[in-house]
């Protein structure tokens, strides 16, 4: 122990003698005794023993009824001390609450402190505190109110916020500023943990902002910073106020109390600067309001003290964030210069940080400070070095990438901090992918990444690398060259000692060798097999990696039957079942070259593989199992539903997780060995293949990635002998090469060190000066990346479908529209196409066409969609009861089956109602817009959005002018591709009552799948055929309706038919078959059989989630019946 402490200890007894005279000291003497005894101890073991005694003595004391509150307070202080030392004193928690509740002010204070130290948000005991807090908030004793507010602002159960909220709100107008201040901070805390609950008091925040006490105003800025960070647009009007406050502060208008080392309210200034920068970002007019005050505060903050630098730094950040002004930028840049050149290391650090931020806007600044940056690169302080690398990362371009990456890798090799390694290694990989000058450098760098990144490397680094190799670019030769490099390089690595390589690297290597080793003609495949097989024997190789290796072996096994059989033999006794299974597959495949060819086609295009995600090949297995009495599979939501039905209580927090093990169910199916290995690989390597993925033709990306690769070792590699690896980074880039050579020559001589740095600088900052400043920023303006990733198939499809969903007038949509209107021209031609023509009442004219249309329904069934134009018809009749509204329906849809008219929303001017109409191929949502006023409303525009559905509306769904007391009708076609049990739609109507005065009226509603289910008319034979072709099935027992004395099966099916619009195909004895479809899309067949008092229902559909959805609604329908 150090001298200082020893001296202190020797002084202790004397101190205690003095202290024990006073009364207060007696109370805390227990603590002093404890502290003294602990300091006297010499070993951790003794301390533990003492603490054990202490804790049990405390336990006794707290549970004794004779312990006074005063003693309890003393115990609580000791308990806090014990917890700080890391010993569990949780038995005192409840007593801390009691102390806060029952003690006098003094004890309460300690009690509250203990509560805030012991309990964290969400601790169950906190609920017991609520009453105490309520009581103290209403106390007349200011100190009690303060204590209650202090604890509320630190820990408070989220659910109980409404209980105290009114009281805390009241405190905002308390005469004492300390109470107002604490109340504001308590509300800030509430806002952080439960934003919705304080939404209604935003106006009061404004009052706090205008408080005459600067302390209260400062506290309110915490809330504003948070609010503005979330939505800057809502608070632009406050810019003026913030600027005014800032001006006053900077101008020295605050009382001296708020000065800190002669700087006026620095905390307040920094808070304001942050708020201003958020408000001014990308907003020229707002920014213009603040230029002056920013300039002023730059000028004022001249004193050489940390606190002024803190303000300057924030100022600089603000200047570079808001809309730029040349004059200010110049001053800010000078300021950064002062930071960077400062001898104080803290300032230097901040200077680098500011540069990192600023080079995004102006890369030349980095150029100005290049010598400092170079010095910082070799700084002894880890933090400085890391920040410098961060800066270099931002200025990387195709010309300096080799030098910068080398610097980063050097740093990583000497860095022991895992977080830093993961973070930086990701950046190296990003740079390598973006700027790699050539193949060998790229492969070499990625090898470094994998070996340095180790096993904590983020999974997407190897995934991206393999994807890049596999997808390639447009030029096949280049791709093959890259792959060849990889193969050669990895063979060299594997020939050395591979035992210490990280698993990710091994996985990458085995995948690459499996996939591409055939490209290298001069390498004997037997050699590759031997190398890979050698890996399997190593103990350090994880079982996941073994799966990758075996998969690679499977791919290259062709023609090497003897080796493979030997290998499979040795693995067939492995303890790992997955390995045994793979060995088995390997053996089968190597005996059957035809099968091998079809399972693992060599050089097959990347995205041509398809996988049967419905697992229909397992149907045989499943039906066998079911016949043998196995329980049918139930999807999770169904199980949950049953559970809640059974228990009547909703046990939400304990909801199920379902263990689906693909590999376990796939083992015995003899027909599809390839898929077996696929699925086992899937479960083993957790790729992102989602079970629920809709189509049955999933692209097998995930599977390929399963067999992967890993990194390689740096020191080794340079010593290695393989030709492609041997000429690594040095040869890559002229400037890089020069620099390296230079350094080798001159390093020992100190006199040339400076020159050295110059050299380094020229290679680091190459390309920065000559190009325009933007071109540094890598991202958008960078030269086309060498390795261009193809868009991932699923991404591109989803994004394109996403856009087409959104933009209703996209070309594909409109072309479909034309086809459809061509097809159904006779139906649509009498529709007012886009016009908002005001037919007074044109309904009867079109009557005759409706008959034709009904006749056409079967035709419509076949089409995938018909676009319905939401046309608007104005009616001059005043809107009466909502049921009359259906009379206003456009003639062409008037006869469709429809729901009741529901009122959606209303405001003084407009009222909205909706009605659902069921067309075979779509759901029509009709919206009635009634003008409740006597005046004309102009520019009425309806916007409807629903994420889950495809909504087809016409652009310009607008009525120019809606007469007083009239109603306009518009309708939308909604299509459901993916079944959802319930979907909600939202929308807005905007309109003008006076010119230039736009009002909006939001509305929303929900739709259920039932609205999208249509009967499917088929014969029993067709039903039988269809049944066999469908793969997704769900079984479930439902309630059988037995009322009314009729046949229970018939009654039940009729009830379902009415509720869900099903088609009852046939009823034979105790069995019934029913069919429906999702609009004109996926069919769903229901097979129902009376089973005792229940209805056994078996649903099948090509769509994975449709049966569940329909089953859910069947259950609901029967439950409601």
């Amino acid at each position, binding site marked *: *122990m*150090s001298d*200082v*402490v020893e*001296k*202190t200890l020797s002084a202790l007894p004397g101190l205690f003698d*003095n*202290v024990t005279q*006073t*009364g*207060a000291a007696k109370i805390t003497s227990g*603590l*002093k005794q404890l*502290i003294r005894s602990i300091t006297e101890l010499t070993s951790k073991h003794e301390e533990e023993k003492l603490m054990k005694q202490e804790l049990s003595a405390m336990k006794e004391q707290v549970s004794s009824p004779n312990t006074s509150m005063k003693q309890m307070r003393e115990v609580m*202080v000791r308990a806090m001390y014990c917890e*700080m*030392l*890391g010993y*569990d004193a949780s038995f005192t928690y409840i007593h801390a609450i009691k102390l806060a509740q029952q003690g006098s*002010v*003094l004890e309460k204070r*300690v009690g509250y*402190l203990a509560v*805030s*130290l012991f309990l*964290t948000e969400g601790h169950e005991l906190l609920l017991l505190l609520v009453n105490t807090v309520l009581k103290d908030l209403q106390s007349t004793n200011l*100190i009690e109110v*303060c204590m209650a507010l*202090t604890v509320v*602002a*630190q820990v408070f159960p989220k659910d109980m916020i409404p209980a105290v909220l009114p009281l805390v709100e009241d405190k905002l107008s308390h005469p004492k500023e*300390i109470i107002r*201040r*604490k109340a504001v*901070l308590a509300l*800030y*805390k509430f806002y952080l943990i439960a934003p919705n609950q304080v939404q209604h008091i935003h106006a009061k925040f404004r009052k706090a902002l205008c408080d005459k006490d600067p*302390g209260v105003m400062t506290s309110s800025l915490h809330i504003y910073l948070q609010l503005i960070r979330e939505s800057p647009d809502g608070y632009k009007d406050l810019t003026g106020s913030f600027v005014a406050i800032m001006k006053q502060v900077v101008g020295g208008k605050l009382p001296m*109390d*708020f000065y*800190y080392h002669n700087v006026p309210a620095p*905390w307040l200034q*920094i808070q304001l600067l942050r708020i201003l920068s958020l408000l001014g970002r990308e907003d020229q007019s707002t920014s213009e309001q603040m230029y002056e005050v920013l300039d002023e505060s730059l000028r004022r903050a001249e004193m050489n003290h*940390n*606190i002024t630098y*803190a303000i300057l*730094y*924030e100022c600089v950040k603000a200047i570079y964030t808001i809309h730029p002004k040349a004059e200010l930028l110049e001053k800010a840049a000078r300021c950064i210069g002062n930071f960077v050149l400062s001898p*104080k*290391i*803290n300032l230097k*650090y*901040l200077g680098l940080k500011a540069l990192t931020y600023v080079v995004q806007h102006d890369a030349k600044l980095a150029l100005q400070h290049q010598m400092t940056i170079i010095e910082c690169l070799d700084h*002894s*302080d*880890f*933090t*400085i070095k890391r920040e410098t690398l961060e800066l270099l990362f931002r200025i990387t371009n195709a010309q300096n990438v080799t030098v910068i990456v080398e610097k980063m890798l050097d740093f990583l090799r000497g860095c022991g901090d895992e*977080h*830093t390694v993961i973070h930086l290694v990701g950046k190296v990989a990003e740079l390598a992918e973006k700027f790699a000058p050539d193949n060998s450098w790229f492969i070499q760098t990625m090898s470094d990444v994998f070996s340095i990144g180790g096993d904590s490397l983020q999974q997407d680094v190897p995934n991206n690398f393999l994807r890049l190799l596999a997808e390639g670019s447009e030029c096949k030769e280049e791709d093959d060259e890259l792959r060849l490099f990889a193969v050669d390089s990895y063979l060299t690595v594997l020939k050395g000692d591979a035992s210490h390589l990280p698993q990710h690297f091994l996985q990458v290597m085995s995948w690459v060798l499996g996939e591409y080793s055939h490209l290298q003609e001069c390498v004997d495949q037997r050699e590759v097999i031997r190398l890979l097989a050698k890996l399997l024997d190593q103990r350090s190789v994880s079982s996941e990696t073994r799966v990758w290796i075996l998969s690679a072996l499977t791919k290259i096994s062709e023609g090497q039957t003897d080796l493979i059989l030997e290998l499979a033999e040795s693995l067939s006794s492995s303890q790992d079942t997955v390995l045994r299974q793979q060995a088995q597959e390997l053996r089968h495949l190597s005996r059957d070259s035809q099968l091998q060819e079809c399972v693992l086609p060599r050089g097959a295009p990347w995205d041509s593989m398809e996988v049967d995600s419905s697992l229909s090949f397992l149907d045989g297995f499943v039906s066998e199992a079911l016949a043998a009495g196995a329980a049918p599979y139930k999807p999770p939501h169904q199980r949950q539903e049953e559970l809640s039905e059974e228990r009547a209580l909703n046990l939400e927090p304990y909801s199920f997780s379902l263990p689906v093990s693909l590999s376990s169910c796939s083992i015995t199916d003899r027909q599809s060995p390839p898929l077996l290995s696929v699925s086992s690989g899937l479960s083993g390597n957790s790729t992102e293949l989602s079970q629920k993925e809709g189509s049955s033709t999933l692209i097998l990306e995930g599977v390929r990635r399963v067999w992967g690769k890993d990194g390689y070792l740096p020191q080794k590699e340079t010593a290695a002998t393989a030709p492609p690896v041997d000429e690594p980074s040095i040869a890559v880039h002229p400037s890089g090469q020069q620099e390296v050579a230079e350094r080798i020559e001159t390093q020992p001589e100190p006199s040339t060190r400076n020159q050295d740095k110059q050299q380094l600088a020229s290679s680091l900052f190459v390309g920065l000066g000559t190009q325009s400043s933007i071109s540094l920023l890598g991202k958008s303006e960078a030269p086309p990346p060498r390795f261009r990733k193809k868009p991932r198939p699923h991404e591109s499809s989803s994004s394109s479908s996403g856009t087409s969903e959104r933009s209703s007038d996209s070309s594909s949509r409109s072309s479909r529209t034309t086809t459809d209107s061509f097809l159904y021209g006779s139906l649509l031609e009498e529709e007012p196409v886009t016009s908002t023509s005001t037919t007074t009442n044109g309904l009867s004219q079109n009557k005759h066409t409706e008959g034709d249309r009904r006749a056409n329904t079967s035709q419509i069934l076949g089409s995938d969609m018909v676009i319905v134009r939401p046309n608007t018809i104005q009616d001059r009749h005043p809107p009466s009861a909502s049921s009359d509204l259906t009379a206003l329906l456009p003639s062409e849809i008037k006869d469709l089956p429809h729901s009741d008219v529901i009122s959606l929303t209303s405001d003084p001017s407009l009222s909205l109602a909706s009605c659902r109409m069921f067309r075979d191929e779509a759901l029509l949502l009709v919206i009635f817009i009634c003008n409740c006023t006597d005046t004309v409303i102009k520019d009425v525009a309806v916007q409807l959005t629903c994420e889950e559905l495809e909504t087809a509306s016409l652009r310009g769904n607008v009525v120019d002018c809606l007469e007083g007391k009239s109603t306009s009708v518009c309708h939308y076609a909604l299509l459901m591709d993916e079944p959802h049990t319930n979907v909600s739609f939202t929308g807005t109507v905007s309109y003008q009552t006076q010119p230039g005065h736009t009002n909006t009226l939001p509305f929303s509603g929900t739709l259920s799948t039932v609205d999208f289910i249509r009967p499917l008319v088929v014969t029993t034979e067709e039903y039988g055929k269809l049944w066999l072709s469908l793969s997704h099935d769900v079984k479930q027992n439902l309630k059988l309706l037995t009322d009314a004395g009729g046949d229970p099966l018939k009654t039940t099916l009729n009830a379902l038919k009415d509720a869900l619009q099903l088609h009852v195909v046939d009823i034979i004895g105790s069995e019934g078959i029913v069919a429906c479809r999702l609009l004109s899309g996926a069919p769903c067949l229901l097979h129902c059989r009376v089973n005792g008092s229940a209805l056994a229902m078996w649903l099948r559909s090509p769509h994975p989630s449709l049966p569940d959805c329909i089953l859910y609604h069947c259950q609901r329908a029967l439950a409601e019946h």
Partner: protein
Amino acid sequence: MQFMLLFSRQGKLRLQKWYVPLSDKEKKKITRELVQTVLARKPKMCSFLEWRDLKIVYKRYASLYFCCAIEDQDNELITLEIIHRYVELLDKYFGSVCELDIIFNFEKAYFILDEFLLGGEAQETSKKNVLKAIEQADLLQEVRVECCRSKRFGNFAERDS
């Protein structure tokens, strides 16, 4: 601010205040790791370090390290000044504060901290106001504890730099 730790040169924790909810296990782990990292740093190094996804700002006063964790976008220098203001407050309250004052009256140190920072944000930066609030509450206490007036460590609040 996410949390504040005070620990001695020997690595003994003297005060801990957590503004984010964490389990005891995590708190202990973080404390152990941080104390180790900070103690290993040399005096000439800068007062900041990146640790996990947080930024640590620390400063040594005599035998005590004050250490705060902030988010990346927060201002490091102002955090240093928060530490310094806290030390000034302690110094004024105890009258030339030393480590022993904080060991033996750690609950007082907490009270002062709670008046200065609330929920991780600076509540009151005026020295006078903070001490006034503390003294008002203290007045209820029978006798102010007068102890540990040891000046052995020199002026505690004097800056090292």
